[in-house]
């Protein structure tokens, strides 16, 4: 593989991987909003908190 192609590939894929990982990391780590939110799986947690 020539150097120019290698740099283009690594740079492009690196940028895409970094942004994908960054945004998904934010999704996973940002504190959920208070109920009622859009998601049903954490509804029990909310009930537990109220009790």
């Amino acid at each position, binding site marked *: *593989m*020539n150097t*120019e*192609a*290698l740099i*283009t*590939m690594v740079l*492009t*894929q690196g940028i*895409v*991987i970094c*942004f*994908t990982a960054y*945004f*998904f990391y*934010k*999704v*996973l780590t*940002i504190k*959920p*909003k208070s109920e*009622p*939110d*859009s*998601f*049903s*799986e*954490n509804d029990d947690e909310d009930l537990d908190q109220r009790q």
Partner: protein
Amino acid sequence: MSVKSESWGSRVGLILAMAGNAVGLGNFLRFPVQAVQNGGGAFIIPYLVCFLLMGIPLLYIEWASGRFGGKFGNHSTPYILDSMVKGRILKYIGVFGIFTNVAVAAYYCYIESWTMSYVYHSLAGTFEGMSQSGVAGFFDSYVDIAQSTTGIPFEAVIFYILCLLLNTYILSKGLGGIEKVAKIGMPLLILFGMILAIRGLTLGTSGASDLFPDANAWDGLNFLWTPQYSSLLDLKVWMAAAGQIFFTLSVGMGTIHCYAAYMKPKDDIALNAVSAGFMNEFVEVVLGSLIVIPIAAGYLGLDWVIENAGFGMAFQTMPYLFQQWGPLLAALAGLFWFGLLFFAGITSSLAMGTPWMGFMRDEFNWGRNKGAWSFGLLILVMGLPTVLFFKQGVFDEYDYWAGTVSLVVFAMLETILFSWIFGMKKGWAEITSGADIKVPSIYKFIIKFVTPIMLIIIFLGSLFKPLNNDWSGNISSLFSGNGWKLDNGSIIKTITHAGIREKIALATDPAVISQLEENIFYINIARFLLIGLFIFISSLVYIAFQKRRREGRATL
């Protein structure tokens, strides 16, 4: 009013479902081919520019419109648009958001059924010992329903119906079913893709054979990634990049609106939209570029790839290439390749079912089961002609009008509506409401001016596509007074069957002429079915409007 309000299980589930909706077969097949045909590594520059200027804005528009409509209990585009701007006609523009999904799902499920069938054939060792032309011929026999590759009569029809039943069953489980498939399918798709991408990256010259002594996977990667900066000045490359971004994100369909309509008003859409969008880009740019082109170049050489790169490679070439790895690895590679295509397909086709189900529930109180099975029946009626008359061009006709033109028209109209009629003030407030990230304010300008202009250019580009897709040459020709020559693939020429009529004029064999004339007949039937479907959905929207009026819920 809804029979029972549905909701997403978790935020990750929603993002995976949205990403699954966007990730399709095109990520692995269309993107690398477009890159090869449009300047290799330099294609990525217009591609990423279009992603920032058109892709992300469209994602914001659709997520925001969907969540806004959801506040009023609307989960499909006819009444989502109606809730945004009062006007009798707007709900009929929203018909595109159901029509496109039904029409695309009709033929898309057929491609999905090929992947199911090819997983079976890969594991059963059907391709063992087959030559390259044998594998290509196998596909031709498969789609010719009169022939059977397994001994099962009407195999293609049976796999199609099985695929449709599977989709319908999952849809009948509601958003929970879709979310479960996305949570299993997306990680598996990425895992399978990574395994094959590592193989593509490490193949090097080991695939060279006596038949193709110059074959080298590095040549494929070099060609794909070496920038040809001169191509940046070619308008064709920019049009191709804009088209690729448009189709890869599944915008202009109505599915994103529908998924987002199940969100609560205060929940984030800004971060969710870019997260799902970048996940699609990861699958496309990282995985999609490292599988088909390097593996094909590694065994067949770069010249073959340049000449033959296209959608058909997935089914007509890849099984042959996998055979070069020995029986066990060939079976596994077939499982991974067609498995990832299957997951890419099913996460998209499930999304296509939700606008219809949402509409029928909102307007006619249909439950999940009734909604899902009626969707399955509608797809069967619309889809069987694509299976039975595949070779007569019905499949391609659906793909052209529903899978290409309809998307562009709807995206253009909804963007103008959002930016100019709903208004950027309300639109921006909707995009940033509950946002977990700061959306750069430059996007206010981009959404209002740049994105609509880009979409209008794409639409006009499809309407008046220049001869041989030579944009620069035709623009020079126009300004030098020599006129604008239309390509047979332009919307205007396609309507009149110009391409087929040209072939008929050139043909001398009566059998070929009769075959081409027969194709025109079947293509006209396909158009009749598509128009009929559009009228049918418009009628349902009208009936729903009358019902809303009687119930005092109509907006105008």
